[in-house]
């Protein structure tokens, strides 16, 4: 499962990209500080110079502090030691960033670059302090933004993980439902078998064969996603054989599979809920019983399977077995596997009963 999860969750961003991401913020803070300095000094004519100098100092400080942070302190929840390191970094960088920015700015503006001994003046020292405060604030802002981003990413990853887990649970549930054999059906079949052993042992043997074949098909379906139409029809033949013993003369059935469609592939146990509905809701509750006909045909590149019964018909569902569950589960399966490429329709049959029509893409090897 972890391999599935990792394919859904984006890889963490590289350090270089994270460093670049907040660079515009450094430029903006630098520009803001240039405005502040110009207003405080009261000399608007030097604003442009101030802007260049300030932005470059800001960028230098940003690159040094955040570069250092990403290199050495790139983990969440710093302890007191982490914070001490971080503060030391800020204090170390401020006196470095200021001359560095000033030097580059001087080169750009064509001013004489200050030498190391002419650099230290009282005014410059106060500017270094100003840079220190500015860069400290900027860094805190950057860190805050990064924290927010991380939280968002974690949330998204969590949501994705939940979705993946939910989808897997759904698939598992579907497999379980496919494998589920209705207890009422199983126990009634066993009761018939028990009776036949005493009354007609030969028929009991035949019925047991049918039960084995049906159970094998049903239980195999929980392990494989696909089957052939031939196998699916054989499973339904076995199911109807069992029901035929139980219902006696009340049930007649016919299965028609054209030889060309025998090897057509389809999701396993797709027909079972439809045939079971026809029996349980259509024919079993009807006093005189009736007939069920299962047909397959290829129509314009599509596989069309019909299950037609002469039972009580739609609208007679007594709600005893939660009628409609089989149909809605089948529709969900079709939608998940084929999208709009498959459908299931239920219509009243003539003169009575229900016609279930299943259309899906024809898949013959």
């Amino acid at each position, binding site marked *: 499962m972890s391999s599935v999860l990792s394919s859904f969750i984006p890889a963490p961003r590289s350090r270089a990209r994270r460093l670049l991401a907040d660079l515009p913020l450094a430029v903006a803070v630098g520009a803001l500080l240039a405005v502040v300095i110009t207003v405080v000094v009261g000399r608007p004519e030097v604003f442009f110079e101030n802007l260049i100098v300030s932005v470059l100092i800001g960028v230098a400080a940003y690159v040094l502090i955040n570069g250092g942070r990403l290199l050495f302190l790139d983990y969440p929840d710093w302890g007191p030691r982490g914070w001490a390191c971080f503060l030391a970094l800020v204090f170390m960088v401020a006196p470095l960033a200021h001359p560095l920015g000033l030097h580059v700015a001087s080169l750009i503006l064509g001013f004489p670059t200050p030498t190391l001994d002419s650099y230290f003046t009282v005014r410059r020292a106060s500017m270094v302090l100003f840079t220190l405060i500015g860069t400290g604030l900027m860094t805190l802002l950057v860190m805050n933004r990064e924290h927010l981003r991380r939280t968002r990413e974690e949330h998204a990853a969590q949501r994705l993980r939940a979705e993946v887990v939910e989808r897997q649970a759904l698939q598992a549930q579907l497999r379980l439902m496919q494998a589920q054999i209705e*207890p*009422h059906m*199983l*126990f*009634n079949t*066993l*009761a*018939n*078998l*028990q*009776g*036949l052993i*005493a*009354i007609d042992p030969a028929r009991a043997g035949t019925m047991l064969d049918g039960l084995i074949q049906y159970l094998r098909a049903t239980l195999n379906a929980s392990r494989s996603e696909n089957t052939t139409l031939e196998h699916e029809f054989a499973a339904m033949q076995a199911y109807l054989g069992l029901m035929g*013993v*139980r*219902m*006696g003369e*009340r049930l007649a059935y016919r299965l028609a599979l054209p030889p060309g469609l025998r090897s057509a592939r389809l999701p396993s146990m797709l027909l079972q809920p439809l045939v079971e509905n026809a029996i349980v809701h259509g024919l*079993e*509750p*009807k*006093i005189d*019983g009736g007939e069920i006909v299962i047909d397959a045909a290829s129509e314009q590149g599509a596989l069309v399977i019909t299950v037609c019964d002469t039972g009580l018909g739609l609208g007679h569902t007594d709600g*005893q077995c939660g009628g409609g569950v089989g149909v809605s589960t089948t529709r969900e399966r079709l939608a998940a596997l084929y999208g709009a490429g498959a459908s299931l329709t239920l219509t009243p049959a003539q003169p009575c009963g229900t016609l279930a029509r299943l259309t899906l893409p024809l898949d013959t090897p």
Partner: protein
Amino acid sequence: MTIRALIAEDEPILAATLAMTLQGLWPGLEIVGSAPNGVAAVEQGLLLRPDILFLDIRMPGQTGLEAAEELAERWDGPQPFPHIVFVTAFDDYAVQAFEHAAADYVLKPVSAARLGKTVERLRALVEARQQPATLQLADPGALGSLVSQLQALLPAAPVAPMAQRLATIRAAVGNTVRMIPVGDVVFFQAVDKYVNVATPDAEALIRVPLKDLLPQLDPLQFRQVSRSMVVNMACVSSAGRDDFGKVTLTLRGRPDRPKVSPVYAHLFRQM
């Protein structure tokens, strides 16, 4: 005197198996018939008047519970009501319900040992019945115990919230629709797929099944008194009991005399 039993079971092999196992356990028992569905179970029950009736729960036509209810409603004459044993395949809910209702039931596939216990109990009950001197007055008999079982087993009609209750019945009469205030209705009676709405001065048919109509009525004012009849309790003037304990109602404003099913007879017992 032989004891006569009827088996109602839609699966022929199961009916034959039950008959065979019973005869092995109780040679004196005569299986007088076998009914293949819930409707035939009632008809044959009334015709053959067995001492014991084995009723499958899931049958075409109507369920074993509904058949038992109908049989209790239509049972008449001096013969005692048959002892009923329900037969059911694996069904967790049903088994719990049967135990709760203290109903006699056997599970399919039938185990001979389990059926043997049922046979013992039935024998004791039938013998007690053949010696009237030992019968106590308070003994409710087979019908009485079935009634209390059915009261626990039959699903209660759901009751809609006040807002969804009907205030007027809209019944088509020719080209007009009559608006009948629910309070004016004396009774609703199921007739095939329709329901006959009876007021003191008129009757009208509506196309709503009784079981769909019932939840939309005030459950205190309108009570079901039999499978096909719901009466306005305010219109019941008296309830009479005949020699066999059958309850019949007299209504205000209507000449009809509806019979009360034994299942609902407790509604008309003195306080």
